[in-house]
């Protein structure tokens, strides 16, 4: 049939030198891409069957109109685009917080709590410095958010390092503690007498400046800066090398003279810092004060972002943009077609389901040769397998 040569090229090269690159990119994005497409199709089914369940006449064009409105709401005009990025920025920072922990083999479910503490730290310092010069108030408030978040990450990190307490358990518990701390602070020491509801003062001069459109605050730049810093940390520093080694093979890390326990504590603190920064940018850039309950799901959505991006810092931008844009577009969708916002949650959850159960997608689309390992999924499976990796 073919010539018997040991150097047979495996595939034709239709695009010349670009072909290997395209294959490489496809092998990385195939799974997330297919997961997204399938989840959108599941969204169509949900809309279709909800009409039947609700006893309404079935309108086959509903799904098309809903997705159209979703896209228009997120990218239809400059304001929409800016708003998408405002929704995206905290997800980028949160995604980095979860993704960095994944790199060290840790499952940080505590981004939510770290986010809340970050917002709390930012509002506390922001309100105190509301009349101070911007050049002092803003950096101080951001820093306070980062420190508070880092502390909330350090606690589970240290607990794991010292006693082996699993971070999945401790971070979930600390999420609840964070809710309590915020409720106490906002209804107690930070409460302003102006309103009857628990509500803090405005952060005044500590607010992030609006740079773009109606609400495009400088926190978006902060998020991109954080991506660059995390990428640099992982790719170009010895600490990043140590974090990745501990995550990939803690025994080899120990043999190589690294300190897995210390690295666990450091990584969780850095993760908390990033999630805290996320909370601080939302507070200083969007809400500018804090009320109870401070409703947000950024911390939990960040887990989905990190998984979809496989913890890759650059991938996290795209994953966060997907979820952020859907959040930004959802109001227009529900306004025009009466499809509720919750469809976004369904789609988001379905994406995750397909990612984690990736074997389904492999079989369905006969994806061979696409990247088999998903480090973050391994971490999750290990997390529930109970094997304590750090010694």
């Amino acid at each position, binding site marked *: *049939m*073919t010539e*018997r040569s*040991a*150097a*047979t090229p*495996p*595939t034709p090269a239709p695009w010349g030198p670009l072909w290997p690159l395209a294959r490489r990119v496809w092998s990385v994005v195939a799974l997330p891409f297919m997961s997204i497409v399938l989840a959108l199709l599941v969204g169509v089914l949900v809309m279709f069957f909800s009409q039947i369940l609700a006893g309404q006449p079935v309108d086959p064009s509903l799904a098309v109109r809903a997705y159209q409105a979703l896209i228009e709401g997120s990218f239809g005009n400059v304001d929409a685009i800016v708003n998408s990025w405002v929704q995206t920025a905290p997800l980028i920072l949160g995604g980095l917080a979860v993704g960095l922990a994944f790199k060290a083999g840790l499952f940080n479910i505590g981004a939510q709590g770290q986010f809340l503490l970050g917002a709390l730290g930012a509002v506390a310092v922001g309100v105190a410095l509301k009349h101070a010069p911007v050049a002092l108030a803003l950096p101080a408030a951001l820093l306070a958010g980062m420190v508070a978040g880092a502390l909330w990450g350090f606690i589970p990190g240290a607990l794991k390092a010292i006693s082996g307490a699993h971070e999945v358990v401790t971070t979930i518990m600390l999420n609840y503690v964070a809710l309590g701390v915020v409720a106490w602070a906002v209804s107690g020491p930070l409460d302003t007498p102006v309103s009857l509801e628990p509500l803090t003062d405005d952060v005044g001069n500590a607010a992030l400046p609006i740079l773009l459109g109606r609400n495009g605050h400088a926190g978006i730049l902060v998020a991109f800066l954080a991506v660059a810093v995390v990428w640099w940390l992982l*790719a*170009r*520093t*010895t*600490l*990043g*090398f140590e974090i*990745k*080694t501990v995550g*990939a*093979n803690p*025994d*080899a890390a*120990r*043999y*190589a*003279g690294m300190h897995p326990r210390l690295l666990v504590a450091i990584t969780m603190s850095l993760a908390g810092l990033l999630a805290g920064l996320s909370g601080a940018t939302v507070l200083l850039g969007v809400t500018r004060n804090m009320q109870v309950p401070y409703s947000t799901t950024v911390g939990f959505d960040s887990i989905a972002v990190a998984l979809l991006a496989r913890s890759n810092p650059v991938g996290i931008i795209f994953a966060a943009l997907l979820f952020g844009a859907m959040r930004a577009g959802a109001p227009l969708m529900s306004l025009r077609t009466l499809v509720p916002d919750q469809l976004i949650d369904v789609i988001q959850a379905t994406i995750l389901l397909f990612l984690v159960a990736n074997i389904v997608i492999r079989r369905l689309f006969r994806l061979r*040769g696409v990247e088999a*390992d998903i*480090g973050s999924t391994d971490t999750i499976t290990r997390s529930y397998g109970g094997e304590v990796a750090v010694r």
Partner: protein
Amino acid sequence: MTETTPPIGSDVPAAAPVIAPALEMRGITKRYPGVLANDHIDIDVRPGEIHALLGENGAGKTTLMNVLYGLARPDEGQILLDGQEVHIGGPSDAIDHGINMVHQHFMLIPVLSVVENIMLGDESMRGLVLLDSAEARRRIIDLARRFGFDIDPDVRVGSLSVGWQQRVEILKALYRDARILVLDEPTAVLTPQETDEIFAVLRRLASEGHSILFISHKLYEVLQIADRITVIRRGRVVGQRIPAETNEDELAELMVGRGVQLTVDRGESHPGAVTLTVDGLRVKGDRGHEAVRGVDFAIRAGEILGIAGVAGNGQDELVEAIIGLRKPSAGQVVLAGREVTGWSPRHMNEAGVAFVPADRHRFGIVASFPVSECLVLTDYYRAPYSAGIFRNDDAIEAAAERLTLEYDIRTPSVDVRADTLSGGNQQKLIVAREFARELKLLVLDQPTRGLDVGSIEFIHRQVVAKRDAGTAVLLVSAELDEVLEISDRIAVMFRGLIVAVLDGRTADKNEIGLLMATGGREAPAGGVTAA
């Protein structure tokens, strides 16, 4: 379906009687990006035959078996059973056709009993939901009796020795009515005695008409067990022999493609000053028991001390305590006059100690890292590989390029994942990293386990070169031949104690074997405590 002509170089022995093969693989070709893993391989196994497939790591044995088991789809070629072409889409197809595989790493669940493990995936049912374990149990006992394994069907698999676990795997295959049994490196984890026992079982199976495909890279083994031997190299069949008409040297040459020295030519050792002294060392094992119970020895510069012993007699704990991965509970380690007891691995590394671990996947490499990063795994924090907190990727890359050349690590580039390398090349990677600096002490734990002859020869040469450069070498190996081959002195370890120290050149294999098995010269075979 055109008939393929036999490839050049496969001289089929004329003496072979003409029986329709139970299994025939014709012209199997499998390409992976950049690699031709199987290049028109033809192989057949007759009923009642033990056919050995011999080849180095990376020669394409595993790919061929994956094709047979439906785990990889061949690009070309056909599979015939009793002369009929079959299509194997997955392991369940293979099992339905009576092909069963016993993997190198057992696929058993330790907490389940023998019966439960064997039934797994093929449960006989009573009604819709009830397991019929009584019926299964009866069949298993029958099978075990027929093939001469005396096994308790209700014992938990986790409590069985490795040799017995392997028998459970074989029983599992027989339970599924396997006619063709594929064994992938079955003896890699066995002691010599267990190997003999498993060979007896295989012969029994063959005499009952089962066909056995035996994959190995151990020359003496295939000569001992096989009826026919097919040698593959770089994805091609390079020859077929029958044991009576060949020998180890010829097989090694076929397998490697050049003449191989099976034993390293080492000169006299010239021991210098004492480099390492271990005094009264006691070390606890993972389960809290005392794995090393007071061990003393010394190694001089330029000397190789081999530690012989059946795996699990405290050797791993001993070396881990010496290089700092485990804290000893008592005793002293002195390196070049300085006490280093309980030093961290990094301190030991900086003091001139190198370590080649027994479990290379656990300690030696990080599977998902590129080759270049694995090559600096212990040095990444030092100049020139880093400056302050910054990595110097150019220096890492340059060192990696140099080491892969110097140590003949076969890899398409230094940027590919370390786990894409064959086992032998992974081990060379570790050797390159550990050997490429001035050393006082070299600690080797099973340095050639699972490697092919070419890689073993290479690593042994490097070790002897280090010795001649004045390094003290501690070699732990469960392969008695390896210890005998390169050690200047041999210590025998038994149940956490060193029970004898012998001269490496005059030591007698049988004597050491007896010491390994019983711990004492006068002790009767069967084992008594060596205290």
